[in-house]
C-alpha cells in the first residue's frame, strides 16, 4: 500500500511537471475559447456590417411589372419609378442613380433584375437585400400575424411522448447515461498514448532492473493506471471548470440558453449500467495499451499501435445509426459482446435504452473476465519482457516461460 501510494504520487507529480500535459490540458479549452471567440466576433462584425448597410442611403429607381410592390413602401425609401428596364439601366450606367430594380410580371418564373453601381464584393449585397425587403414589406402589410408566422416558419411545437403510461423523453433520458460515452471517448483520446508509453520509459531508461527488484510489477502497473485515472480527473476539471465559469459569468451577456439540470430525468439503473461499462472498459483498454507498451522495446514502436487500438475502439462509431435503429441484428449484438469493440456500442445502446437485460449481464461478465485477463497479461509482459531492450515479445513466448 505504501509503495502503491508512492508510485501514484511520483507518476502524478512528474506528469504535472511536464509541459506537454499542460499544453494538452489547457490547449483543449483554449482552442474552444478561440473558436467561440472567432464565431462571436465574426457574428458581431457581420451583424454590425448588416446594420451599417441598412442605414446606408442610396438612390434607387424601380419598375414593378408584378404589381406586388406598394407605392407607400417605395415612398418610404424615396425610390422613384420608371416605366421600362432600358431607361432604368441607362440611368445607372450614366451614374444619375445608384441602383435600379426590375420586378418581372411573374416572379415564380423570372428573376428580379438588379442593376447598380459597384460598391465592392461585400457591400454589393445591400442591393439584393433592399430589393427583397421592398417586396416582402409590401406583401406582409396586409397579412394577419398568424399567417405571417406560418409563412416565416416561426411556428413552434411541443411534443410529449409516453412509455408504459408515463411521460418519456428519449432525448433527455439519454443525457446522464450518455455522459459516460463522452467521458470514455475523451479519456482514451487524451490518455491513450500516455497509457501505451507508460511502461516503455522504464525499459528505455534501463531502470527496469532496479524497479523490479524494489517493487512488485503488479503494484507498479496498478499505480501507473490509478495515476492515469487521477490525471484524467485533473484534466477533466481543467477542461470543465473554465467552461463552467465562462457559462456563469457570460450567461446573460452572450444570451446563452439556460440549463436546468433538475428537469432532466434520472434513471439510476441505466446510469449505474453505464458507469459499470465505462469503468470495466476503461480498465480493459488500459490493460491492453499497457500490455502493448510492455511488449515493445521503445515508445516510438509502441506509438505505432495506437492507431490500431483507436480503430478497434472507435471504429464502431461509424455504425452508430445501426446500434440505435436495429439493436436486435446479429451484427449489433456481436459488436456489443466482443470485448474489444463492445464499449462504444454498449454505452451508446444503454444511453438510448435499447440494451436488453441479458445483454447487460453477459457483456459485463465478458468485459470483466477480459479486463482481468488483459491486466494479468500486461503485468506478465512487463515482468518477463522487462529485459528485452531491443526486440518485440510475443505473448506466446511470455507464456511459454515457466513460473
Amino acid at each position, binding site marked *: 500500500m*505504501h*509503495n502503491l501510494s*508512492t*508510485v501514484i504520487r*511520483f507518476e502524478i*507529480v*512528474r506528469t504535472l511537471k*511536464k509541459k506537454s500535459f499542460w499544453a494538452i490540458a489547457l490547449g483543449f479549452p483554449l482552442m474552444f475559447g478561440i473558436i467561440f471567440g472567432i464565431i462571436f466576433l465574426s457574428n458581431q462584425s457581420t451583424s454590425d456590417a448588416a446594420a451599417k448597410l441598412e442605414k446606408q442611403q442610396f438612390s434607387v429607381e424601380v419598375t414593378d411589372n408584378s404589381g406586388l410592390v406598394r407605392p407607400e413602401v417605395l415612398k418610404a425609401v424615396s425610390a422613384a419609378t420608371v416605366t421600362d428596364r432600358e431607361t432604368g439601366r441607362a440611368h445607372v450606367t450614366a451614374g444619375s442613380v445608384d441602383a435600379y430594380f426590375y420586378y418581372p410580371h411573374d416572379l415564380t418564373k423570372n428573376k428580379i433584375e438588379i442593376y447598380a453601381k459597384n460598391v465592392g464584393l461585400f457591400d454589393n449585397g445591400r442591393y439584393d437585400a433592399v430589393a427583397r425587403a421592398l417586396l416582402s414589406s409590401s406583401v406582409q402589410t396586409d397579412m394577419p400575424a398568424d399567417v405571417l408566422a406560418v409563412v416565416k416558419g416561426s411556428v413552434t411545437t411541443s411534443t410529449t411522448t409516453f412509455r408504459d403510461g408515463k411521460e418519456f423523453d428519449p432525448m433527455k433520458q439519454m443525457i446522464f447515461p450518455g455522459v459516460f460515452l463522452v467521458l470514455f471517448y475523451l479519456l482514451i483520446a487524451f490518455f491513450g498514448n500516455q497509457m501505451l508509453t507508460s511502461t516503455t*520509459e522504464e525499459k528505455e*531508461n*534501463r*531502470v527496469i*532492473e*532496479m524497479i*523490479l*527488484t*524494489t*517493487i*512488485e510489477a503488479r503494484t507498479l502497473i496498478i499505480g501507473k493506471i490509478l495515476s492515469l485515472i487521477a490525471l484524467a480527473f485533473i484534466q477533466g476539471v481543467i477542461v470543465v471548470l473554465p467552461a463552467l465559469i465562462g457559462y456563469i459569468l457570460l450567461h446573460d451577456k452572450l444570451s446563452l440558453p439556460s440549463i436546468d439540470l433538475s428537469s432532466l430525468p434520472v434513471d439510476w439503473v441505466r446510469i449505474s449500467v453505464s458507469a459499470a461499462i465505462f469503468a470495466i472498459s476503461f480498465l480493459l483498454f488500459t490493460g491492453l495499451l499497457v500490455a502493448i507498451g510492455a511488449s515493445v522495446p521503445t515508445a516510438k514502436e509502441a506509438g505505432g499501435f495506437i492507431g490500431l487500438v483507436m480503430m478497434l475502439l472507435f471504429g464502431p462509431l461509424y455504425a452508430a445509426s445501426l446500434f440505435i435503429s436495429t439493436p436486435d441484428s446479429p451484427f449489433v449484438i456481436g459488436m456489443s459482446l466482443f470485448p474489444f469493440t463492445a464499449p462504444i456500442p454498449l454505452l451508446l445502446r444503454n444511453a438510448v435504452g435499447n440494451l436488453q437485460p441479458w445483454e447487460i449481464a453477459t457483456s459485463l461478465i465478458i468485459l470483466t473476465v477480459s479486463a482481468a485477463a488483459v491486466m494479468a497479461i500486461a503485468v506478465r509482459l512487463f515482468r*518477463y519482457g*522487462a*529485459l528485452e*531492450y531491443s526486440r518485440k515479445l510475443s505473448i506466446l513466448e511470455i507464456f511459454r*516461460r*515457466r*513460473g
Partner: protein
Amino acid sequence: MDSIISIKNFSMQFGKTRVIDDLSFDIMRGETFGLLGSNGSGKTTIIRALLGIYIPTGGALLIDGKPYSVSGSVKLGYLPEERGLYKKESVIDIMMYFGQLKGLSRDEARAQSMSYLQRVKLEDKAKLRLDKLSGGQQQKIQLGITVMGNPELLILDEPTKGFDPVNRRLLMNIIEEHQARGATVIMVTHQMEEVERLCDRIILLKDGKARAYGTVAEVRQKFKGHSLNDIFLEVYGDENDEEESNHA
C-alpha cells in the same frame, strides 16, 4: 556464519544455449563475495535469476531460504549491470522515489538523499534533471540509490564500470563501510585488484561452471600461489589461445 544465499543445482538455458550448468554454491551472511568470470561467463545471469528477473531452467536460488521477493525479509540494494534511471526527473525526486519504495518515509528518504549527495559533492545538483549530469555523476546517483536504506544484502554488478580512479576509491570506501556494519556484499566483476582488496570468498566461473570456489587464499593456494589476475589469465588464457589459433 550461516548462509544468506544458497544456490543449488542451478541451470539456465536461453534457447538451445546452456549458460549455467548445474551450479551450486553458498554465500555466507556478512561476507563479501566475488562473482568472477570473463564476459559471457554467466555472472549477470546468476544475479538476475537470484533476484527473480529470470526464471531458472532448473535448480533453486534462495535468499534466506526462500526465492527472492520484493516483500521478503531481506533488505536489498542492487546495482545492475545495465545502468539507468528516470532521465527527465530531478536527482532528488528520483532518489526520494527509490528511497520510499525501499520503505523509508518521505523525510528519511530526503535526509538520506541529501546526506549522500553532500558526501559525493553533488548537493548543488539535487534539483537538476538527471540527464543534465555527466555519465560519472549519474553513476554516483545510481550507487547512492543502491545503498539507500542500509541494505543487508548489497549486490553490485560491475560496480566500477564507468568510474574514474577518484570515484572508484569513493565506491570502495562506501563498500567497506557497508562491510563494516555487517552487510553481505556480492561483487560481480573482473577487476581482480578490487577482489583481492575487498572479497572474503570468490567463485570463478567459466562456461557456466565453477572453476574455483573458496576464500581468496584457498583459491590462490589451488593455483600455486599465483595472484588472482594470473589465475584469471590462466583459466581464460586457453580461450584466448584458441581464438588466436582460429584466427591464424
